[in-house]
């Protein structure tokens, strides 16, 4: 039986977009009390249950309503219709240090901010030392906050927010703050929250953050829920549907360069073709290009290039590799590029295919980004390339005594994995 920490039921939120803001009485009287506005639905009939103890992500591009939903859950905005139920205490980190008074000291601001987040005075007093230690501001706590550096400011904000220790924590893209060591500390704290069984709701458009931390993600667009799924699938949907990458498309035949040879249909097939649109990292990929030719092309060189969704080149074949030589007879045929294993991680990749002359610089035909394939990573590794490190651990001065499970596997510390650990720390 799963208990829901947050239940969102039929939530809609309408914003009124005024053509010109008229807030003075005079202007209202002139307009007869009516102000022209365009209704804008930031949220439309959103339904979602967030389970207790789960880390849930909301993905979507700017203006999709994800922050509005978060603000509704936090109680900052009131929904136009619908209802949200939150079980237990809730703290929202929409902006670190929101509500800090620059003229007050760090100490006063801890109390003010803590109270704003719903702590009683006694609670804050209990946690005060933890907060100061976490923010690493022992020496500056009695200085006015306006003299703090932006890093100090943000650290204090985060320290207060996490020490509120809510049952439900709402986070809006604020984790990427501070220097590397502080970020690590923040992530450690988030992990600790997860271990303690607290519910975390993260809003972001950073897919790697989602993949690493969330159990489920919800993809939103135009104020509506597109899908609620595992991070891998959710991110794939997010990238495909929302960034406008689109599903696999096939190209039309283009013009013939040099009027000799033309590349027609280019298709991508992969290890999972037929079952799913995307392939998993490590699966095979076959690109097949249909080639028409009016005359025999004995000295052809087939080339292929792969770009990622940022249009960065991932791979281009060696143009002089004799393996790429093709001999196209009159009438044409099929050129097949086979990759036994695609070591790529998440993303939508576009394929460009060309045939050029091996003897001179003539290009018979070149189809730029003519087809696409998608890789969806079911695991939690992020980045572009799938590397598989072997990782082991040893104590200094000793040989390698055991193996630590590879990346992606659950790490369970036990004496058998780390022999000698107990002795060395005792």
């Amino acid at each position, binding site marked *: 039986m799963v208990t829901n920490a947050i239940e969102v039921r039929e939530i809609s939120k309408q914003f009124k977009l005024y053509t010109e803001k008229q807030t003075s009485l*005079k202007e209202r009287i002139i307009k007869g009390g009516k102000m022209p506005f365009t209704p804008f639905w930031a949220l439309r009939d959103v339904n979602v249950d967030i389970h207790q103890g789960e880390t849930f992500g909301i993905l979507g591009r700017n203006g999709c309503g994800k922050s509005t939903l978060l603000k509704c859950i936090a109680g900052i905005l009131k929904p*136009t219709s619908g209802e949200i139920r939150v079980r237990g205490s809730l703290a929202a980190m929409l902006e670190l240090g929101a509500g800090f008074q620059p003229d007050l000291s760090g100490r006063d601001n801890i109390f003010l901010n803590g109270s704003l987040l719903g702590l009683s005075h006694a609670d804050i007093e209990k946690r005060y030392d933890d907060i100061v230690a976490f923010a690493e501001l022992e020496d500056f706590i009695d200085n006015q906050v306006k003299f703090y550096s932006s890093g100090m400011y943000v650290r204090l904000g985060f320290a207060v927010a996490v020490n509120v220790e809510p049952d439900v924590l709402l986070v809006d893209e604020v984790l990427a703050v501070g220097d590397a060591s502080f970020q690590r500390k923040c992530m450690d704290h988030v992990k600790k929250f997860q271990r303690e069984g607290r519910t975390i709701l993260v809003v972001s458009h950073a897919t790697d953050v989602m993949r690493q931390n969330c159990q489920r993600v919800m993809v939103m667009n135009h104020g509506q829920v597109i899908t609620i799924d595992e991070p891998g699938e959710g991110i794939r949907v997010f990238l495909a549907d929302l960034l406008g990458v689109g599903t696999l498309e096939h190209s039309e035949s283009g013009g013939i360069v040099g009027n000799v040879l033309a590349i027609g249909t280019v298709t991508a097939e992969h290890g999972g073709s037929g079952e799913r649109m995307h392939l998993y990292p490590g699966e095979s990929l076959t690109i097949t290009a249909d080639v028409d030719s009016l005359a025999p092309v004995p000295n052809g060189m087939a080339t292929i290039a792969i770009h990622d969704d940022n249009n960065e080149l991932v791979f281009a074949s060696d143009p002089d590799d004799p393996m790429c030589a093709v001999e196209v007879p009159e009438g044409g045929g099929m050129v097949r590029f086979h990759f036994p294993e695609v070591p790529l991680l998440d993303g939508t990749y576009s394929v460009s295919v060309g045939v050029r002359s091996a003897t001179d610089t003539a290009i018979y035909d070149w189809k730029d980004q003519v087809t696409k394939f998608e890789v969806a990573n079911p695991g939690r590794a992020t980045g572009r390339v799938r590397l598989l490190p072997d990782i082991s651990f040893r104590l200094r001065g000793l040989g390698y005594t055991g193996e630590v499970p590879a990346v992606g596997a659950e790490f369970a510390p036990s004496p058998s994995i780390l022999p000698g650990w107990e002795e060395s720390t005792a």
Partner: protein
Amino acid sequence: MSLGIEKPAAADSEPERPVVIGGSTRFVPGQSNDRITIVNGKVQLGQRLKDLWRNRDLLILLTRTELKVKYKESVLGYAWSMLNPALVLAIYYMIFKVISRTQQPHFAIWLFCGLLVWNLFNNSAQGSTTVVVGKAGIIKKVAFPRELLAMSTVGVAVVLFAIQVGVLIVFLAAFQLTPDWGSLWLLPLAFVALLVFTSAVSIFLSAVNVYLRDTQHLTEVALMAWFWLTPIVYPFGQVGSHLAKYHLTWLYLANPVAPIAMTFQRVIYNQTSYIPTKNNPGHAVVPLLPSYGDGWYAMMIGIVFVVSIGLFLLSLVVFGRLEGNFAEEL
């Protein structure tokens, strides 16, 4: 992803048990989540009152913050808070005592009693118009009962009120005047009624000004008129007879600040009439206040209190309606 090589902590192996670190009880799943918060478009008055009560610590902090921010950087600090009332007092004293030559004894004390009440009301109402707009940054990012912002301006006014009461006590001692000890019990009642009424007005104004920024300026003008409709510099006795002729006394007293100011004057000034010594052949008595007993004043305060409670609840409902869109309007 990250390969954490760490010594297994006690908290990991037994996450279900409360772990006490540094005196604070840590989170236990399933223990603290009996509270269910419901967010929807409706205004739940009971819930709002409960939230206000639960966040009373925040009210104190917001008030303290306001005061600190206001006076922290100035050398004279809180002395500045007295400068404005002192100047007002001095000006009216000059006009009425020196120029108009009123023969009312201890006119400064009389003035002080009324101004005390008026300053509390005036400071709160005037301050509340800008408080929500001024705190847009917090309102957009943090969820808390926003009425507390308006109530914090009342809190600030109460602190200034307390300082002024201290000064008044010094004045009374200096003039060797004694308040009416027997009627002193009326003062706390009057103060509470004034507080409720002031809070109601402040909460209402703070919300309305978000949508109609004119409220701020309108309030300034309205308060000026309101001041002269309240018996502060002139005694009620001077207008009372004229009003009675047209049966309008009730209308005058419908101003909730009036009975409260009169109560303060009645108890502290402790004189309901005086006999002028100069140019007064028949030794005519000049009435200052109604000479009814404490019961009349108590009744007036009671009426103000009941009406104010009603207004307070109404202002919470209005605030609740308008609050929903604060974050987008600001």
